[in-house]
Structure formats: C-alpha cells, structure tokens
C-alpha cells in the first residue's frame, strides 16, 4: 500500500497534474456558480478536453472540477440564494441570511473552511476504506457484480426523494433501454439501431450526458427566463465583510465539522445517496443537536447551520469515489459520468484498478486532498472576483454553453448525426424535466447497462444456462436481499400512510 501511495504521490505531484487540479478547481468553481449548471455538466464539458490526456491526469482534472463545482455552488447559494448545485441548497438556508446581514465574507470563509475540513477528513477515510474494500472486492465474481449493479440502480431510485421512487425507477429503466441500442455485446449482432450505421456502436455516453445535463440545463434557464445577473450584480457590489473567523466561532464549528464529516462520508459511500442527501441530513442532525438560542438561530444565519451541510457535501463527494474506484460502480450521477470517462480512457474500473493501475487509483485520491488545499488558499481570497463572473449576461453565456457542449461531442466522433441527436435528446430531456423526471438515474442506468448485461450473460453461461447463482452464491444473495429491502421500504411507507389516512377518514 505504501508503494501505491508513493506512486500516486509522484504522479499527483507532477507539474502537469498539479496544474490540472488548479485548473479543475477554478473551472469547476466558475461553472458550479452558474445557476442551472451543476457538477455533472461541469465534468461532462471537461471530458472532450481530457481525451488526449493519460487516465490519471484526466481523472485528476475531473475530481478538481467536481470539488470546484460544489464550492462554486456554495458561493452562489450564499451570495444570491441561487444554488448552482442541488448539494448546496441546504447551504443557502443559513449562508444567504448571513450574507444579507453583511457577513458574506464570513459566510464564504465558513463554507471554505468547512468544505476543506470535510474534504480532508473524508480523504483520510477514503485512504483507508478504498484499499480495504478493493481487497474484499477482488473475490467478487460476475454474479456478485450483476447483483451490485442492480443494488446501485435501485438505491439511486430509493434515495430520489418522497414520491419520486417510481419516476426514478422509470428513468433507470430508460437508461438501460438506451444502453441496449447498438450491437449485442456477445455476438455483435445489430440491435435496436433503426437500421442506421451511426448507431451500430450505440449511443455515446458523452452525447447523452451533455444533452441531458449541459444542453438541457442551459435550455431550461432560457425556457424559465431565469435572470440572475441583477441579483448577482447587487451581491458582488455589496459589502463582503471580513473573511476572518473568531476563536469562539472556530470552537463552535469544530464539533459540527467532525460529526458532519463522518456522516457525509458514509452517506457518500452508499450507492445512490450523494452530496444532496448528506447535506440535508447533516443540517437536520445539527439542528436537533442544538439547544436553546443556538437552535433558534437556524435559518437566520447560524454558523452551525452553514458549516454542517458544507462539510457533509464535500465529505460525501469524497465518499462517492469509494464504490467508483473499488467496485467500478458509481454511486451518483456525477461519478457515473466519471466512470464513463474512465471506460473511454481504456481503464477497467473496479478492484483491479487498485492492483493494476495504482498510479490512477492513488493519484486520484491524493489529488482530492490537493484540490481541497487549492480551494482553500486560492479560491477563498479570489471569490469576490470570481463572483463577478456571475454578472456575465445569460444571453451571451447560454449560446457559449451550447457551443461547447455540441463541439465537445462532435470532436470525438466528427459525425454531424451526433449533433442532430443531441438536439433531439436535449429537447426530450427538457420535457421530462418539466414533468419532474430525474436525469441522474438514467445516466447511471445507461452507463451500467452494458456492464450489467455482460456480467449477467457471463454468469448464466458459466452456470450452464441457469440463474440459480442468484440464490446459491451467498454474496450475490446478500446483495439482492439488501436490494429487495431497499425496494420494499418505500412501498411499506406508502401502504402505512394509506392505512393511516384510511383510519383518519374512519375516525373523522
């Protein structure tokens, strides 16, 4: 393990890779600040640029973008109450009231210190947990992988929020359906390609990610006529206040940061639960822990209320790399896009990544730590200036986002058909967003579809055409039982609520 860490360190510390962390954090902060564009769009926009890089460099850039986007989202949450990222919605609950009181500088500093601490503690956990899980995962076989993928896809839907379980499941199935388009992975026969040669290789994951996130998010801002420039201008021209924290404030933050880091990391590791759930849970937990006047402060500019979600969302971002790097199974839409990028680099993600490509495995983990340091020492003092970028008029910004998305996909295939398809997919995605269908489960389903089919078919072939491996292998059975519990929980909740309503009706 020490050899691996040293290899990773030497890879992460090359000037190119350090520059990538820097560029990634900066670009991510900027994109994350723009309401409407989240980390998935930020990462998707970077993929075409990273095709020429070696896998470690590409992943380091994307990890930097991921952290930067979350930090950027916090900035717009605090300054203009417009979270660019779902994971920073809880940040606005107390961050924005602080900014309204003229304490924007302090709120940004708390967010930066909390993010740094959460990211650092989680990076240490990752350093311990990832190799341990990777060693266990080396004993996994095709049936277990198939079961894990079913678990991952189901968990994403289960965590989709109240009333959205079936919608998220539907989108997962749609993602899997789209993954079937192209050719059969075993015998290579064309399948569901509408007779088009352009679709023989299937739909490119980059095309789908760009169209459903970057393009459709940009179109949504136009559709809803969202104008943020005025609010941003007012916020950035207003008084930022001091960035310094007092000893008492640091003392108040410290236990919050410790608790939220642990919570955030473990929530991040769970497939499907990501930074958003972690930040809300940490906020709720701290509000429950607070007593008296401190509890009253929540929602009005509480330091604890700001530090908790900020710590947890960064810790969860690190945690979400555990299943990606050790099992090759992404736990969130963002890591799903990263998995797609890894596959396109020719890297086989999973437990073998730890043994066969230690430089990729370790350099990504270590660069997360460097990313946190860079965000703290570079972004914090520069935030007032970076925030001015928010005042860029959206009538100039949207066409540029559309251009970078289209050309990013075109540069990979040099096929006009991909541009036409992106437009169609983006328009469908806009419609689905209006009906409140989540996009992340679809991307996850799409990326895991091919792997899932390969593992299932391999398992059936090795088992002489029988599916008895589903209940004969203890690991597979355990994972499938967990999956069944995850599916059953929302249904149990649904029937309980129905019974309660029926009883209330009878009583009334």
């Amino acid at each position, binding site marked *: 393990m020490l050899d691996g860490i040293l290899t990773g360190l030497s890879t992460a510390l090359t000037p190119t890779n350090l520059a990538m962390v820097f560029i990634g954090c900066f670009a991510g902060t900027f994109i994350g600040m723009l309401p409407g564009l989240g980390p998935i769009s930020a990462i998707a926009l970077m993929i075409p640029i990273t095709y020429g890089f070696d896998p470690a460099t590409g992943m380091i850039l994307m990890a930097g973008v991921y952290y930067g986007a979350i930090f950027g989202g916090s900035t717009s949450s605090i300054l203009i109450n417009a979270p660019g990222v779902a994971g920073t919605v809880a940040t606005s609950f107390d961050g924005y009231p602080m900014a309204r009181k003229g304490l924007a500088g302090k709120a940004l500093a708390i967010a930066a210190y909390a993010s740094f601490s959460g990211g650092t503690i989680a990076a240490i956990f990752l350093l311990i947990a990832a190799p341990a899980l990777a060693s266990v995962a080396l004993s996994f076989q095709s049936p277990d992988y198939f079961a894990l993928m079913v678990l991952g896809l189901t968990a994403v839907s289960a965590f989709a929020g109240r009333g959205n379980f079936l919608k998220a499941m539907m989108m997962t199935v749609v993602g899997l359906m789209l993954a079937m388009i192209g050719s059969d992975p075993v015998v290579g026969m064309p399948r569901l390609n509408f007779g088009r040669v352009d679709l023989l290789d299937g739909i490119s994951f980059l095309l789908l990610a760009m169209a459903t996130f970057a393009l459709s998010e940009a179109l949504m801002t136009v559709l809803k006529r969202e104008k943020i420039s005025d609010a941003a201008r007012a916020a950035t021209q207003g008084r930022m206040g001091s960035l310094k924290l007092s000893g008492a404030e640091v003392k108040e933050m410290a236990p919050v940061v410790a608790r939220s880091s642990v919570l955030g990391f473990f929530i991040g590791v769970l497939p499907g639960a990501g930074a958003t759930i972690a930040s809300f849970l940490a906020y709720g937990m701290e509000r429950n822990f607070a007593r008296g006047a401190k509890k009253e402060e929540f929602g009005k500019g509480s330091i604890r209320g700001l530090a908790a979600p900020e710590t947890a969302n960064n810790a969860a971002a690190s945690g979400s790399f555990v299943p990606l790097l050790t099992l090759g199974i992404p736990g969130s839409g963002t890591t799903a896009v990263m998995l797609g990028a890894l596959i396109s680099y020719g890297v086989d993600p999973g437990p073998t990544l730890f043994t066969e490509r230690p430089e990729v495995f370790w350099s990504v983990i270590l660069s997360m730590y460097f990313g946190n340091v860079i965000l703290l020492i570079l972004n914090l003092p520069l935030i007032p200036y970076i925030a001015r970028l928010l005042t860029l008029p959206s*009538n100039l910004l949207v*066409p540029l986002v559309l251009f970078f998305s289209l050309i990013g996909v075109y540069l990979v295939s040099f096929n*006009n058909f991909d541009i036409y398809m992106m*437009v169609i997919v983006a328009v469908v995605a806009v419609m689905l967003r209006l*009906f409140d269908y989540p996009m992340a489960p679809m991307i996850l389903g799409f990326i895991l579809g091919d792997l899932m089919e390969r593992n299932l078919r391999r398992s*059936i072939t090795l088992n002489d055409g029988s599916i008895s491996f589903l209940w004969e292998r203890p690991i597979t059975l355990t994972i499938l039982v967990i999956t069944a519990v995850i599916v059953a929980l929302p249904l149990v909740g649904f029937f309980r609520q129905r019974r309660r309503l029926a009883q209330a009706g009878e009583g009334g």
Partner: protein
Amino acid sequence: MTRDRIGALFFLAVSIAYGLMSLDIRVPPFASEGFTARSLPLALSAAGTLIAFLMLVLPQKDGPGVEPAGRFLAGLGGFDWPRIAGLALNMLAYGFLLTRVGFLVSTILFLIVGYRLLGERRWHVLLLASVPVVVVFWAILTQLLDIFLGSALGRWGQLLAAQFSGGA
C-alpha cells in the same frame, strides 16, 4: 387526468413500443435458446410497462404531480417556447453547416444567431463575443493541441475555391 398520469401514459407507450421493437431483434440460430440479445431488452420493456402501469394506477401523493393536466399544459404555454425552438433550429443548422462551410464560419454564425435569439442586438457585442472566441478556440485546438477540425473552408468553401482557381 393529472400531470404525472400524462407522463405515465407516455412511458407506457414507450415501453410497449420498445418491447415490440425488441421482438424484431435477430438472434443467430445457435443462440436460439437461453439468454440472447433479445432477452434483456424484452425484460426491460416488461419492467418499464409495469412501472408505468403502477404510476398510472397507484394513488398519487399531494404535490405538483397531481396538478390537473389542463392546468399543467396551460402553464407550459407561459414558458418561452419560441426561443427554445429557435435555439434548437440554430443547433440543427450548426450541425448541418459545420462540415459544409467549415468550423470558423459555421461557429461564428451559430453564436451570432444564438446571441440575437436571446435578445442581444448590439452588433459590436455580437461580433466581439463571437469572432475572437471562435478564432482563439480554433487556434488553440488546431495549432496548440493539434486537434483536426476538418477543412477551415468546409466542403462548400472548397468547391467554391476550386471553381475560382479553375476559372482563373
């Protein structure tokens, strides 16, 4: 009929159509038994049909999803659809022109039309926000990163150039 039920009906139709298309997937004779290229698509069609059916029949929770379809569709009318249609057409035109008139011209046109569609009318802004951006991007890609972007003139430009050089 509510908003979410319209969505459910749409996915019910999609899942059934997907299943029918999956029946047409050709399977080699030697793989006619057991798990074939058709198996998973058919299973997914069944899963999609079941989920859509559940969304249709299960009672709905309070929230935006239970908004009556008529009111929801009327609400959609308040959005800026003409601009979206304009941007979509602009992107399709960009895809069509990219190889025909080359990267530089098609991208500058795409950006200028996009800015104008979103309300920018000042010509100096339109030109400053498109020409330098595209030229710098093109220079970085082709000169610095050595990424091939196709002929700078495109197919039509080359034909035109050939005409002129032939005529001279």
